[in-house]
């Protein structure tokens, strides 16, 4: 049984505490279908989120089967299902794939047979079996809500919370969904709580909870609703609510609560006797009866969460599937991969030109000696500029690729990630899957860039070091943008910040214009492009290095320092990305 004892959820508004959930006290037994209704903004969803544990209760306590959820540990991911208002599936997947992924992420199955059975059961239960092969993007609103339910039912939760899953649906779809939820609450002692603003199909619920200004104004049988509010029609309940404050309604309700709860208990007993509500043997037989024999309790074996590695594999497989099914994304990646290196090679000819050297024996004629020096300097400037520019061009384009790789990676699917975390997906599995996916992109982009450019312009020096620096600059920008993506609230913010990050790389690198010394000291540690450019130039050998050194005012750093700086940036990016993924951001 779910019990709320004077639960409050308080926020600070203009320095004053405001109770969005005001001392809510009510009981919901097993195998019960309850609706939380109330006018817009009355705190229905806030109450549901408080039950789910997404809003920390500021006072009071929540109990589940005699367990204080704040002190004895929260509901296990398999015990609770939460269907939010938004879609929790990727449009690129089919219904079957979405349910399979949800199952693989939430339930540890012994074998494929058990996995298939679980998926088939859920598809049948939600009526999705006939459209299992259909892509999510073509589903109707009602079908998407069913899918949301199906993805929650894979772990066979004992408490199912649904937030406005009927809103925006046509009357027929709404009726179907409410019927489905009603049916789901009839078996296995599953408690279903639906938040809705609709007062249709009230007869299907076991109880109705009316919320007003964060306070419980009524919780009782649906057929008593009009009687309690002294109205002729349920549609008149909301206007009647407005006549008193939430606190007044709550005080009034407290006086009648016991009488209505007795009616609820009597109806429930009748339903159990008639077999309308089927409780598993291990569950309580009636409201208020908490006694269960230990022998019966042991009968239910709770599903176990899959391992971190298993979740990582499932998430990675899904990421690749979504990537390859998104044609625009694939085309963009291929275009970037092919076109960016071509841009660099436009400058290859200048970088290949020979550089004159001074003779070991100086010219006796001072004019000839000076002329010779001028010619050498001209060559150095021409070739040095081209080589430095090409290296910086490679670096900047790879930084741009890194930004494109990661800027939306987490922010773009934040809601789905939060929902999956709620269902038991570990942030570290999520992070690892992102890193594995992005590493493949980084390697493909950086190696192709290095080898393609090498084909047209041979790198004079340690090519391996140059490749390493190209990979590292892409990795560091990707990691930093992944961090931005996991911290930012929206994908738009994340993309914008990531583009700014790349945009500032070139001017702040000092490769084009040397920065004032104090400014250089301040910014250099954070500019990935500088370290990759400087490291690559350090990897150049002899004459070419001297030529680049001649045209560069900015001080170059040793290769090992550049390597360390880029690795450190990557590591910091990954750590911040992980922190952003761990952080609870459900409301973003």
């Amino acid at each position, binding site marked *: 049984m779910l019990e709320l004892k004077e639960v409050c959820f308080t926020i600070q508004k203009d320095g004053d505490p405001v109770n969005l959930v005001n001392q809510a006290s009510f009981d919901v037994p097993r195998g019960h279908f309850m609706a939380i209704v109330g006018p817009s903004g009355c705190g229905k969803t806030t109450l549901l989120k408080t039950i789910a544990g997404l809003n920390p209760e500021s006072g009071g306590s929540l109990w589940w089967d005699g367990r204080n*959820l704040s002190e004895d540990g929260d509901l296990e991911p398999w015990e609770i299902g939460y269907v939010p208002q938004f879609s929790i599936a990727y449009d690129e997947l089919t219904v079957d794939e979405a349910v399979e992924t949800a199952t693989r992420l939430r339930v540890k199955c012994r074998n494929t047979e058990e996995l298939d059975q679980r998926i088939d059961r859920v598809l049948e239960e939600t009526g999705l079996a006939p459209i299992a092969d259909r892509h999510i993007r073509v589903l109707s609103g009602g079908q998407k809500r069913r899918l949301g339910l199906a993805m929650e039912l894979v772990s066979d939760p004992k408490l199912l919370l649904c937030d406005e899953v009927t809103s925006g649906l046509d009357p027929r779809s709404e009726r179907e969904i409410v019927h489905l939820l009603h049916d789901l609450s009839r078996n296995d002692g599953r408690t279903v709580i639906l938040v809705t603003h609709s007062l249709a199909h009230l007869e299907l619920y076991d109880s109705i909870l009316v919320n007003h200004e964060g306070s419980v104004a009524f919780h009782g049988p649906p057929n008593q609703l009009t009687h309690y509010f002294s109205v002729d029609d349920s549609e008149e309940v909301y206007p009647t609510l407005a006549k008193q404050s939430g606190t007044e309604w709550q005080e009034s309700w407290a006086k009648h609560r016991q009488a209505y709860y007795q009616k609820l208990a009597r109806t429930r007993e009748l339903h159990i006797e008639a077999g309308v509500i089927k409780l598993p043997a291990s569950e309580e037989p009636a409201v208020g009866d908490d006694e269960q024999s230990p022998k019966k309790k042991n009968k239910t074996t709770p599903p176990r969460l899959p391992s971190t590695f298993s979740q990582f594999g499932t998430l990675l497989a899904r990421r690749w599937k979504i990537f390859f099914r998104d044609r625009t994304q694939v085309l963009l990646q291929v275009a970037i991969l092919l076109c960016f290196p071509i841009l660099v090679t436009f400058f290859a000819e200048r970088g290949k030109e020979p550089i004159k050297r*001074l003779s070991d024996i100086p010219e006796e004629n001072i004019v000839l000696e000076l002329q010779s020096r001028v010619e050498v300097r001209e060559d150095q400037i021409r070739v040095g500029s081209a080589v430095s520019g090409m290296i910086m061009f490679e670096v900047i384009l790879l930084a741009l690729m890194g930004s494109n790789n990661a800027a939306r990676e987490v922010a773009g699917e934040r809601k789905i990630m939060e929902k999956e975390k709620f269902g038991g997906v570990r942030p570290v599995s999520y992070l690892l899957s992102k890193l594995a996916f992005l590493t493949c992109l980084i390697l493909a982009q950086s190696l192709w860039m290095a080898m393609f450019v090498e084909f047209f312009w041979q790198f004079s020096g340690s090519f391996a070091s140059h490749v390493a620096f190209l990979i590292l600059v892409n990795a560091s920008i990707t990691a930093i943008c992944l961090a931005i993506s996991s911290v930012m609230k929206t994908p738009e913010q994340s993309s914008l910040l990531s583009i700014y990050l790349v945009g500032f790389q070139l001017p702040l690198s000092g490769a084009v214009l040397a920065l004032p010394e104090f400014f250089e000291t301040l910014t250099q540690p954070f500019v990935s492009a500088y370290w990759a450019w400087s490291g690559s130039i350090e990897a150049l*050998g002899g004459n070419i290095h001297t030529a680049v050194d001649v045209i560069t005012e900015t001080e170059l750093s040793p290769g090992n320092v550049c390597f360390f700086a880029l690795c450190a940036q990557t590591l910091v990016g990954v750590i911040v990305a992980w922190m952003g993924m761990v952080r609870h951001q459900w409301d973003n």
Partner: protein
Amino acid sequence: MGRRASSGLNATALIGIAAVVLVLVATGTMLLKKGKTEGFTGQPLPVEETFSNATAMRRNEYTVEGKVFRIESRDSGVGVCLMVGNEGGEEEAVFIKVPEEIATINLERDVTYAFKIRVGEGGVNVATAIKKP
């Protein structure tokens, strides 16, 4: 045992992150210090004498340390000009020829290097070893 809303970064994770940051700072400092090795030991180059009596110094070996301000690519290697402090506390420009087989590290302007040199037959300083102190 809080609820989901209160779950987040725990103390162990924060300690781990702090440890990683410390390791990064320590490694960075170590890398930067690593470059500051000692110069060569040996007789320092008498800078003023190189202008007045270079031929007398032929076949002698010296050590010299200074900031490079000019690098020239030459047929048989690199020629570097560096500013070296003389006995009077003033700075003088010294030219050193660095053969290709000695120039194992990339020489850069505005960077200080230590050279072990041998004065050649024509009085030209030829590097026999280079370090970046």
